């Protein structure tokens, strides 16, 4: 069965094959916009990696992130203190922005994604009524679509590195255990975004009911 749709980049009518071979990219023939990517077992991978991402995020939030030493002075910060310190200096907008872009948005993206994927995976366990099943994932899907461009965990990581290079000559800086878990979190999160594209999400949800 082939599915008719239009390319979101240039509006060309195309027919999507139902099965995309592993590690191939499906592009629009006219504007070369990537439509979806083939994967062996995208649902299980996405589910597993999003759960580990959530654990890693909690881990990153609960231990020290960076430490700084200069002239006998020592300071350790946790990830959330980047927000807290801005808040205490009365830069409320910046505090909110940093908190949303690096912690709240990715966390809510993962949670929303799981509320879709878990019922799809364990259909038999969750025998939902037909009416709620039809409305609920669509609403979440729309939120996922809106959230995706505002997740800046990778940008934050580069920010950390630039900050370190900036301070290299002034002080000795070292990474805490949270930093490393945040690095893995960012890598895994990119993989989640890479795996669970719009086409695949809708494919899963449509098969669900």
């Amino acid at each position, binding site marked *: 069965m082939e599915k008719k749709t*239009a390319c979101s980049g240039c509006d060309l009518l195309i027919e999507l094959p139902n099965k995309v071979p592993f590690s191939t990219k499906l592009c629009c023939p006219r504007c070369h*916009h990537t439509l979806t990517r083939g994967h062996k077992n995208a649902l299980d991978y996405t589910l597993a990696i999003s759960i580990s991402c959530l654990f890693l995020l909690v881990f990153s939030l609960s231990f020290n992130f960076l430490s700084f030493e200069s002239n006998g002075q020592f300071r350790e910060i946790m990830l959330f203190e980047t927000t807290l310190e801005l808040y205490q200096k009365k830069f409320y907008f910046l505090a909110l922005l940093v908190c949303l872009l690096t912690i709240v948005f990715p966390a809510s993206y993962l949670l929303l994604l799981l509320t879709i994927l878990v019922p799809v995976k364990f259909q038999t366990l969750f025998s939902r009524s037909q009416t709620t099943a039809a409305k609920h994932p669509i609403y979440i899907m729309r939120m996922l679509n809106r959230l995706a461009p*505002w997740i800046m965990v990778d940008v934050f990581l580069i920010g950390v590195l630039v900050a370190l290079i900036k*301070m290299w000559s002034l002080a000795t800086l070292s990474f805490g255990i949270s930093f490393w878990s945040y690095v893995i979190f960012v890598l895994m999160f990119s993989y989640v975004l890479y795996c669970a594209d719009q086409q695949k999400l809708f494919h899963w949800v449509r098969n669900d009911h």
Partner: protein
Amino acid sequence: MTIKYSQGSAAASDLSCCKICAQLNDAALVKCQYCGENISLRTPFSIQKTLALLLASMVFYVPANLYPIMNTTVLGAQVESTILSGILLFLDEGAYFVAAVIFIASIVIPLSKMLAIIWLCICVSSSKSIKHQELTKLYAVTEFIGKWSMVDVFVVAILVALIQVGNLMVISPGLAAISFSIVVILTMLSAQSFDSRLLWDKAER
């Protein structure tokens, strides 16, 4: 009003595609029959919205460069640094790599993004024929690099949290950090409201 849609497009055969769920709908419908999202053949007032948001971001770009982005207090002496003075400081110290990273993230990317969006809008609204492939690529790059300008704001946030050594050395954010983050948000919204399908509705050169 006669609007011509590109050959082979959904709009040309009176179908509108939902941006969220990729469902094809009858062009007469206002909401997607599958997910209920508002749909239209082309984003209404796409160019106007894009330019309005871009103009707003340009307004905020002025204080972002004039005001200090970071205030460093070392032993009671306060040093205010703007984006440009920060880069010059690193050049003086010989830290060319850091200077280059900051220069690209906070000056080259925002400016080239603004120019790219203006160029796309000019191309779409002019009566001349355009090059599809190049402009589509330009739009894709513009959308991709959008969020990377936020690096500067994050650097300030991290330094503010990290460098608090009693009265010895304290870093606090400046006004430019706020306006710069607004610039990034507005240019991202501007790029998002541009409808790339408009590019393909125009004749190929």
